[in-house]
């Protein structure tokens, strides 16, 4: 069974701080996606990375796919209260598609004033 372990599980920080969330696996994935989920809603896709070593930036969010495509990280700079939510990584195994995703264990982030 493939498993994507996320760390930390919970993170409570103040607005303006930086943070990094990690997503690790012993398996190789062809693609890695990051989602954010808010209470009562479904996950919303933030980014997809497909190449080992790839780095993508989305405003204050920086995503990196490990060289071996077994791990990924999400770094948030100057966190805002609107960043609060559950962050999920999800790995895809089929080359070129993300049809069957293996989701990570999740990181719950709370950003306070």
């Amino acid at each position: 069974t493939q498993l994507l372990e996320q760390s930390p599980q919970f993170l409570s920080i103040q607005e303006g701080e930086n943070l990094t969330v990690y997503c690790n696996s012993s398996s190789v994935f062809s693609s890695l996606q990051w989602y954010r989920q808010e209470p009562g809603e479904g996950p919303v896709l933030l980014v997809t990375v497909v190449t080992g070593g790839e780095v993508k930036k989305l405003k204050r969010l920086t995503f990196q796919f490990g060289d071996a495509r077994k791990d990924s990280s999400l770094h948030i700079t100057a966190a805002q209260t609107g960043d609060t939510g559950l962050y999920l990584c999800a790995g895809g195994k089929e080359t070129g598609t993300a049809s069957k995703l293996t989701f990570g264990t999740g990181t719950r982030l709370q950003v306070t004033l």
Partner: protein
Amino acid sequence: EAGVTQFPSHSVIEKGQTVTLRCDPISGHDNLYWYRRVMGKEIKFLLHFVKESKQDESGMPNNRFLAERTGGTYSTLKVQPAELEDSGVYFCASSQDLGGMQKLFFGSGTQLSVL
């Protein structure tokens, strides 16, 4: 444009009863997926439709679960008879078939409680 809609948003049933969940994907999306999160666990894949055909149903837990997508539009997921361990949030997602990396759009989920 409407997103993926799921009905009902919540369902509370007794063990042994039958429940049917419905998912309306984004119009024009050929791919439809069912996922679920049971208490304390990660979201897990159940199955994948391409139009009306089951592409991959390797995640279906047992034969008490039946998914259909007649006509290739909306989908239903029926649990009969429901057991306590079926409680959780059932998510539906859809995507276009663009031949490459797919962007999944998730619905808000159905919270199923089996008592």
